[in-house]
């Protein structure tokens, strides 16, 4: 019997367990998956929780329900990965040996990277919404907040779902309008980038929306520290931005097990072949989802596209065939713009986000890079798709792993 071990039962790990259990011969391969938590969080829902759009129960479920019965599930913290010895150490001294390893440990926030961020005011008037605890604490704060300066801030790139902080600013605008207190709130969006988004084409569309919603923008802001005593963030050029309520996306890093095991970069991301998803250092180790160092967005949709390609490559690897460098960096995300509308962006390693229709060329029903109500419904439907199709590895109609170039106005990225 051979062992295939999956580290992390989040979006990517759960999908891989579901794909592989259908493809690998059961008499030859045992699949095992390890995660520290029993709860599986729907992270895209963390954007809606602070505004009372989703309830707590809508963003979390018992994760083991999504793991196929034939897969062995171990609920423990992973202490150390030892790729030279083909084994993994779990908390409490348990050792698991493997023939093939998939690393899907995701990324988490690291507020301790910035002086003053997770100090005494953390979750008092400085919040994140990238964790369940942060999003919930922020919801409670917003329910009673009487207004003032709201600063929505991105610490440094890359972050998962890079549009989420911008969506947060848009939703905040709607939220306060609906509460009849928009005039009491000043919203400022602070980013280390040159513009609202990482891709210039989408940034143009998004800058316009910021203006329309009267959200101020501070760009090229590289934060040095949070002065929590005087309620301001300060950057290396000594630019200061004052806040009454700071909603920040702290530095995103891979899990500390990657650092302990010495297999990651400065931000604990694992060096991965961008087409095949094989680790660059160990041929029987594969990496998927937010844990990779790939130059594409860290998003559930990306993990979904990667999972299809990785499944094929693992089958090839097992048969001793050459891997295919098939992943094109395809990312696809809904951008919630408030007032019941959203826009949709679609891009890959070489193409900028484009205008057009999705998923069926020329028909849609969703429109790329344009605000619409249909896109908003698409975003809300994504939660159902996530729990019922995505995690279980059920193919989503019309949406392929590789970006479809038809029905789109394409523009190649300048490098």
């Amino acid at each position, binding site marked *: 019997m051979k062992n295939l071990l999956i580290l992390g039962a989040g979006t990517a790990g759960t999908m891989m367990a579901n794909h592989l259990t259908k493809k690998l011969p059961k008499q030859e391969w045992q699949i095992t998956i390890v995660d520290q938590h029993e709860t599986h969080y729907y992270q895209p829902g963390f954007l809606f929780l602070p505004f009372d759009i989703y309830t707590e129960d809508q963003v979390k479920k018992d994760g083991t329900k999504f793991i196929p019965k034939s897969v062995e599930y171990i609920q423990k913290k992973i202490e150390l990965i030892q790729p030279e010895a083909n084994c993994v150490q779990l908390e409490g001294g348990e050792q698991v040996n493997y023939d093939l390893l998939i690393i899907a440990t995701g990324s988490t926030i690291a507020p301790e990277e910035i002086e003053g961020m997770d100090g005494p005011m953390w979750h008092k008037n400085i919040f994140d919404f990238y964790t369940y605890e942060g999003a919930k604490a922020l919801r409670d704060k917003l329910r009673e907040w009487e207004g003032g300066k709201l600063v929505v801030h991105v610490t440094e790139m890359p972050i998962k779902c890079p549009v989420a902080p911008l969506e947060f600013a848009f939703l905040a605008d709607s939220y306060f309008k609906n509460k009849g207190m928009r005039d009491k709130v000043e919203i400022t969006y602070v980013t280390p980038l040159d513009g609202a988004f*990482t891709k210039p084409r989408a940034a143009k569309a998004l800058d316009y929306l910021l203006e329309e919603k009267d959200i101020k923008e501070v760009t090229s802001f590289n934060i040095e520290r949070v002065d929590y005593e005087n309620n301001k963030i300060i950057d290396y050029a000594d630019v200061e931005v004052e806040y009454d309520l700071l909603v920040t996306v702290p530095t995103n890093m891979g899990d500390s097990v990657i650092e302990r095991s010495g297999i990651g970069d400065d931000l604990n991301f694992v060096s991965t072949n961008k087409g095949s998803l094989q680790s660059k250092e160990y041929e029987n180790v594969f990496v998927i989802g937010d844990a990779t160092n790939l130059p594409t967005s860290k998003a559930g949709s990306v993990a979904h596209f990667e999972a299809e390609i990785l499944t094929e490559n693992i089958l090839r690897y097992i048969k001793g065939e050459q891997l295919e460098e098939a992943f094109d960096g395809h990312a696809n995300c809904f951008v919630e713009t408030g007032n019941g509308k959203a826009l949709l962006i679609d891009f890959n390693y070489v193409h900028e986000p484009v205008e057009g229709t999705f998923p069926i060329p020329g028909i849609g029903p969703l429109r790329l890079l344009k605000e619409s109500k249909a896109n908003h419904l698409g975003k809300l439907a994504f939660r159902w798709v996530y729990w019922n199709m995505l995690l279980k590895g059920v193919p989503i109609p019309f949406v392929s792993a590789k970006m479809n170039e038809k029905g789109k106005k394409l523009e190649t990225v300048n490098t």
Partner: protein
Amino acid sequence: MKKIIAQKEIDVNEEGYLLDFNQWSKEIGEALAAENDITMTDRHWEVIDYLHDKHQKEEPLSIRGIKKSGVLNVKEFYSLFPGGPLKKSTLIAGIPKPKSCI
């Protein structure tokens, strides 16, 4: 786009970044710095050497990288290249503007 600088013709993109590092020389770096109101000192060149080294190894450049570089701290980086230090220093070094992000 073509641009004449320090009596040499170079190819640059719309933002003024060199398209071909082989066309770069210290004189061109000096002249590009002057256009950005920066007078190069030994300390500036040490930073440019570091950037070239990173570029050659195809290691991405970032503010975080500067923090860990051991060459200089971020405050000094800002004081040597005021405004956008990564943007300005890479322009002077004749290498592409870092894509800090995805």
